[in-house]
């Protein structure tokens, strides 16, 4: 049985937390679980969130921002990656610039985002876009390059035109790697949204919520917010993994 083993450490941590909270006896440093759980089991209530939006409203706001920035990144990065994977010229033209921009952490763009897009939705989406863009782009390039030359040649000898090769060989052949890029990109985007919501002038979102809770000294709400952030992150990752098993199992099974 695997399940007792994988649950062992979380259970120990929770027990240890409760014991530590009892001895520290300071809810600002470490609140007891009994003050965190009520918040989590009333996700639609604003009573537990100090007058700001409920957990669900905050989570929905964050998810909407992430989805916007992520989709924008995917729409630009996937075609660009296909182009760069297919065309030596385009690759050489863009590669040095991309390598230069890639190591800059998404959060280092915050001041520039504020200068360009002012406070608000667009700035947040921009930060998320930066976070999701590079993993999607690099995986797409890798995916296109991993398409076997023989697959393309078979298609050509069977009468495929350029567009057939693209849609019937390159796209399905690179799809598993692109999917991995989307999964990684979404993970990073989700991390970015929390910090992006710390920008001034934001009044909803999980990132905003935990900073707001900090200003009121409500550590139990901070932890509840963190739990929600973590759980949503896991759930979305699982959705991507399920898609991988459902559609792209051929990649791992192929010898």
């Amino acid at each position, binding site marked *: 049985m695997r399940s007792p083993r994988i649950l062992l450490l979380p259970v120990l941590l929770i027990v240890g937390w409760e014991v530590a909270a009892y001895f520290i006896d300071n809810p600002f440093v470490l609140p007891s679980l009994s003050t965190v759980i009520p918040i989590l089991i009333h996700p639609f209530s604003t009573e537990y969130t100090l007058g700001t939006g409920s957990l669900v409203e905050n989570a929905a706001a964050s998810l909407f921002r992430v989805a916007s920035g992520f989709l924008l990144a995917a729409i630009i990065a996937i075609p660009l990656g296909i182009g760069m994977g297919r065309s030596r010229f385009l690759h050489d033209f863009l590669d040095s610039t991309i390598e230069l921009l890639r190591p800059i952490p998404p959060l280092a763009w915050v001041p520039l985002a504020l200068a360009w897009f002012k406070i608000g939705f667009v700035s947040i989406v921009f930060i998320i876009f930066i976070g999701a863009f590079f993993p999607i782009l690099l995986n797409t390039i890798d995916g296109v390059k991993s398409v076997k030359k023989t697959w393309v*040649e078979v298609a050509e000898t069977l*009468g495929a035109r350029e567009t057939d090769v693209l849609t019937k060989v390159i796209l*399905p052949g690179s799809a598993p790697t692109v999917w991995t890029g989307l999964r990684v990109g979404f993970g990073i985007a989700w991390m970015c949204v929390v910090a992006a919501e710390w920008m001034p002038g934001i009044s909803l979102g999980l990132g905003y919520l935990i900073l707001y809770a900090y200003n009121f000294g409500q550590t139990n709400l901070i932890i509840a917010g963190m739990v929600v952030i973590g759980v949503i992150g896991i759930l979305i990752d699982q959705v991507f993994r399920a898609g991988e098993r459902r559609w792209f199992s051929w990649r791992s099974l192929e010898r």
Partner: protein
Amino acid sequence: MTLVIQDLSKEFPVPNQVPILALSTISLTVGEEEFVSILGPSGCGKTTLLRIIAGLDSATSGSITLDGETIDRRSSQMAMIFQEYSLYPWRTVIDNVTFGLEMQNTGKKPARDIAMKYLNLVGLAEFADRFPYELSGGMRQRVAVARAMAIEPKILLMDEPFGALDAQTRNMLQKELLEIWEKTKKTVLFVTHSVDEAVYLSDRIVVLTPRPGCIREIVENPLARPRDRTSPEFARIRRHVLDLINESSQPKEDLIVHPPSL
């Protein structure tokens, strides 16, 4: 149907050096319903020759015509079967076989019927809805044969298609290929480095010399099929072909001579 290769040469450029001459003055005519093997050691350019015929590479000089017209790789007059497994792993067996038909905008239903016909021919009809990873190497190459045949090309180009298979599977597929060939009477150009395979399969064997690849001799093989690998006539032709290769090549380790199967 006549394939005419005239004075074909191929050079590969090497930076700051004299280009490597891979093929030199190859002339060959292949007619209707012929089974012709191109035999030679590794590096003699036999695969390059086949790729040029398929239109996947271009010749440095010389010409290739099929019924008087120059070759276009997308013409579907020829289909190629590669040595490495080339099935699309994301498609089922039948969807692999219909690939070429999709390219020609054949309707879904007729394409399926044609594909089933050729899957029947290679004995894999019951595997139509499986995925390639569920198939053995020999079965995958059978599907590749069905996929190539489905577009009804005039010539089937085969580049060491059984090279990656074990000896038993290889012999079985050779036998099956001949049965299919006798049923469909397609012209086949078959590249191999196995003398045994060439003698077993072909009407004519084009023996190439290594570096640069030139035609050493074209050996006629009049033996009636099915051929007996243990017969004296078979051995005589094999001996002759082997001698041709031995006198023109030094790297003998490149040659695989299969012992006659009992």
